[in-house]
């Protein structure tokens, strides 16, 4: 039987003034969110968030965010591996390009996606002649979300890969494991925490994506009007609905974060 050790909160050796400034930083984030909750029209909350357009937007947001997170993992893991473990001329430039969506305004991302996949885009025009039309479709939403969220996953995973180093992989190969086997049985399990963190960040970013989606995919209920776009639209005529939906978005994000980070803290 293990003893129960009473948790006592301690400052952990940091100076008191650091804690005060940290508190201010935390309040900067917490206060607006709490204020949002006070703005909600609580008596009508259930009605506002269960209207057909709200439900359509929420369902679309969840569907597309999950799809784009999956795409980010599929593409991001190899990308992070290449960036962390290999060296080739131009790698630094590649890395800068991949991280570009982090600093680009999302609308610029949308414009870039149009330039590539729009009807008259670099690739889009060829796709159009083949009968494949991306703009204004749900695929476009997933593309836009993946574009902005991928760097989050790559960054997080690359850091984890660098920290882990490649010594375990070297040992594994001397024990007879082929490169694919090493990847599957050693690399991935070792960086799983970093991968999960990256995936959660990517999901959250995809969920909140607005500018690129609006510019590239358009806004149509059930097809491309994700929750952020729905909130933007509702602001025009029904601010109460907008606030209520905003709170829903906040709650979803908070739940995802707690579920992922909360478990890891206990370990």
């Amino acid at each position, binding site marked *: 039987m293990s003893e129960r050790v009473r948790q006592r909160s301690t400052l952990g050796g940091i100076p008191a003034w650091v804690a005060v400034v940290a508190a201010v930083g935390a309040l900067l984030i917490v206060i607006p969110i709490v204020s949002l909750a006070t703005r909600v029209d609580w008596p009508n909350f259930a009605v506002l968030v269960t209207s057909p357009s709200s439900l359509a937007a929420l369902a679309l947001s969840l569907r597309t965010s999950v799809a784009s997170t999956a795409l980010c993992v599929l593409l991001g893991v190899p990308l992070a591996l290449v960036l962390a473990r290999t060296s080739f001329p131009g790698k630094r430039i590649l890395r800068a390009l991949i991280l570009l969506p982090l600093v680009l305004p999302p609308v610029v991302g949308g414009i870039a996606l149009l330039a590539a996949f729009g009807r008259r885009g670099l690739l889009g025009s060829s796709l159009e002649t083949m009968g494949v039309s991306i703009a204004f479709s749900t695929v476009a939403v997933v593309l836009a979300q993946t574009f902005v969220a991928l760097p989050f996953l790559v960054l997080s995973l690359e850091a984890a890969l660098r920290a882990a180093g490649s*010594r*375990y992989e070297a040992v594994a190969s*001397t*024990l*007879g494991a*082929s490169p694919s086997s090493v990847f599957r049985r050693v690399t991935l399990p*070792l960086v799983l925490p970093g991968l999960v963190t990256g995936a959660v960040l990517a999901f959250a970013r995809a969920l909140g994506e607005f500018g690129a989606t609006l510019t590239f995919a358009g806004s149509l209920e059930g097809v491309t009007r994700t929750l952020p776009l729905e909130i933007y639209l509702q602001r025009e005529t029904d601010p109460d609905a907008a606030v209520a939906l905003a709170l829903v978005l906040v709650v979803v994000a908070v739940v995802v974060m707690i579920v992922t980070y909360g478990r890891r803290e206990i370990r």
Partner: protein
Amino acid sequence: MSLDVHAVVEPDRLDVRFSLDEGETLAVLGPNGAGKSTLLDVLAGLLRPDSAHVRLGDTTLVSTGHDARDVWVSPHSRGVALLAQEALLFPHLTVRDNVAFGPRGAGRDRGEARRIAERWLERVDATGLADRRPRRLSGGQAQRVAVARALATEPKLLLLDEPFGALDAGVAPAMRRLLSEVLAERTVVMVTHDPLDALALADRVIVLDGGRIVEQGAAREVLLNPQTEFTRLLTFGLGAV
């Protein structure tokens, strides 16, 4: 398996030529930076030499610049196991699964791999640790498990990189006993900076300085009767004991 080595890595890092008979243990002595670890990395396949010819038994592991075709066998196909200073047990696997790693990779099913693992754990006297996670092991225990893990792959060549380097003084004797049993019939290349260990465990010795062999021969000969001043200093006048 007999071992024939001729390896060159960037003019100053390594330039050696030596041979080992099957079942012999070779100790590699030398100061830091002499190229000892570089030699092990070349033999394991973790480092590509500039020019080399390495043959293990009947198999050519590396061949560059000698014949018409270049040969380079990747590390996972060499049958060469490397035991580093740190145990480097996979943190996400139990001790048993760590030792079973090699056999599993070789195609054995889970049950058989685990049986092989348990046999080797018994050999290194670590049976009680089978279900533990590596982070719950002491340095000495981890090294034992690492030995079992390496041997479970039935390597044709075993490489040891300062096996006692990270161990407490109190634990080293037990490790030395284990190794002397286990190395008895294997072809082994062991890097060490302690001439006592070389004397206890090795059949032959080579002394490296600046990547080159300055002296080589039977262990007792080189260590107790060094021919060069360099070796004499290295062995702290062991012969005088």
